[in-house]
């Protein structure tokens, strides 16, 4: 059974497109990234999965349950962390977390104090008096209190300072070790790189790629910097080289293709120095966005 399975999931807002033909298959226990620029359709996809939006067409199952007919069963097993946090202003953090916990059979109210201490959240403060970052801490705590099987996180770190972000990632890693599946939507690629095994890229409402993060980093474009001992006669670069720049006996280019082809070409050159750089995830995905 898959944790998340969507089939041609589509959502139109009247005439305008939200998402189109989204197909996802997220395995249980996986940390799956969902990447895209702002307005790409990440939140629309998530809000459809959560039952907040009614899909225009297509189907989706979460933990084996249909999102349209078994939404309450699904939500009992899910922890959801929204990108924007809006709670009842008149409540204190503790009241809000207790109110949230009472919706579930699996919540342990004692965890509220433990998690509040971890994230340095003042439980006595009214929601209206909390900063955005502190509201986000409240949202993090309410999303894990009931020990969910699946965590759906929409831009989870916005508003958190680096120290809290680190504690949050450690919490996620601990939850994942216990078997919790994590669906991690973000436009911050370093977060995806740190947390995720695989990621889907969404652009203009459509999935443009689903890749293994490690494969992406290994197989995709590499930056090659060379210093020649002896300049080559033909200056013909290997197939897959692009954006080359010559500076006297120095050459820099980007390479997309099998590594053995590049190595074969390099072995035929008279080189003084070779530098192969792994691009960061951001460069890789900029490639996707630009396609």
């Amino acid at each position, binding site marked *: 059974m898959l944790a998340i399975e969507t089939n041609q999931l589509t959502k139109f*807002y009247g005439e305008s497109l939200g998402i189109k033909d989204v197909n996802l298959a997220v395995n249980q226990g996986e940390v799956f990234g969902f990447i895209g620029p702002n307005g790409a359709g990440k939140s629309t996809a998530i809000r459809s999965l959560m*039952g*907040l*939006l009614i899909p225009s067409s297509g189907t989706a199952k979460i933990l084996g349950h249909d999102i349209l007919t078994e939404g309450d069963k699904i*939500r009992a097993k899910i922890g959801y962390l929204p990108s924007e946090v809006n709670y009842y202003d008149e409540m204190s953090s503790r009241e809000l977390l207790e*109110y*949230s916990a009472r*919706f579930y059979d699996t919540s342990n109210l004692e965890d509220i104090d433990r998690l509040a201490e971890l994230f340095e959240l003042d439980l006595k403060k009214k929601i209206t008096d909390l900063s955005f970052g502190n509201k986000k801490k409240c949202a993090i705590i309410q999303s894990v209190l009931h020990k969910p099987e699946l965590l759906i996180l929409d831009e989870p770190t916005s508003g958190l300072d680096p120290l809290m972000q680190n504690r949050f990632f450690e919490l996620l890693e601990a939850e994942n070790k216990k078997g919790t599946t994590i669906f991690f939507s973000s436009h911050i690629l370093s977060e995806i790189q740190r947390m995720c095994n695989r990621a889907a890229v969404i652009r203009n409402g459509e999935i443009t790629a689903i890749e293994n993060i490690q494969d992406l980093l290994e197989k995709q474009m590499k930056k090659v910097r060379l210093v020649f001992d002896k300049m080559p006669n033909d200056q013909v670069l290997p197939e897959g080289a692009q954006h080359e720049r010559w500076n006297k006996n120095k050459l820099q280019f980007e390479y997309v293709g099998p590594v053995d082809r590049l190595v074969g070409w390099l072995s035929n050159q008279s080189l003084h120095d070779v530098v192969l750089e792994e691009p960061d995830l951001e460069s890789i995905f900029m490639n996707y966005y630009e396609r």
Partner: protein
Amino acid sequence: MNKNLFLKELQRNKKNLMIWSGIVIGLTLMVLAIFPSMADMGEDMAQLMAKMPAELSKAMGMDENTWSSILGFYSTYYGIYIIVLVSIYTTSTGATILSKEEKDRTSEFLMTKPISRLAIFKSKMASLLILSLLIYGIQTISAIIGMSLFSSESVDWSIFTVMHASGLVLVLFFTTIGVLISMFVKPKKNFMGIVVGLTFGSYFINAIAKSTESTEWVGYFSPFHYLDFTISDPDYSFNFLSAIVMLAIGAGLLFFAYKTYLKKDIDG
């Protein structure tokens, strides 16, 4: 129904209920407190009324009974102000009980909990019913206390009961309209204007209908036409048929609102 949400709704509306209860109790006691002095001027008031255009008296629900008994006096103001005021509270609460979550953008929190839209709807409607019955009960009790305090003569409690039962049906009917309105008006809009217009408008349509025979037909468009408070009518009794039809229509409106809610995209 979800007990957690039901209790939260009651808690959330507690302050508003207390404020409106204070207003309703104040108005009820004020109306009844005026009666003794009005009764002392009974002859003068009857002469004054005789000089008023008959259409105006009819429209306002005034007749000779208005000044001769506390129940007659109370029924005039009950129809004009009290029912309208209680309806404004319950209708506006009905209009906001679901939409407030969207307006405050808390619906995302609520609707990502393990609770179906049906359970949300039922829990909210149950708390709305309790709030409506509470304010109605509070008003009724304050009227009973007021009559006991400010009337030396005996009160016909059977007529009082008929009047208040009719009033309750009207209030509940308006409340269901409030719930339905909230399905079609943007949550950020202030509902109060629509609610006041609806309740006062219904009252004035009935007042116009009662003033002359030529305008009688417009009364069919007002809920007040079907359950009125003309207790001077010797045949005045509880109109079961109208009450059942209005409650059935109210249930139909709620069902339609639920069906709409079921398919609604939640923005906040």
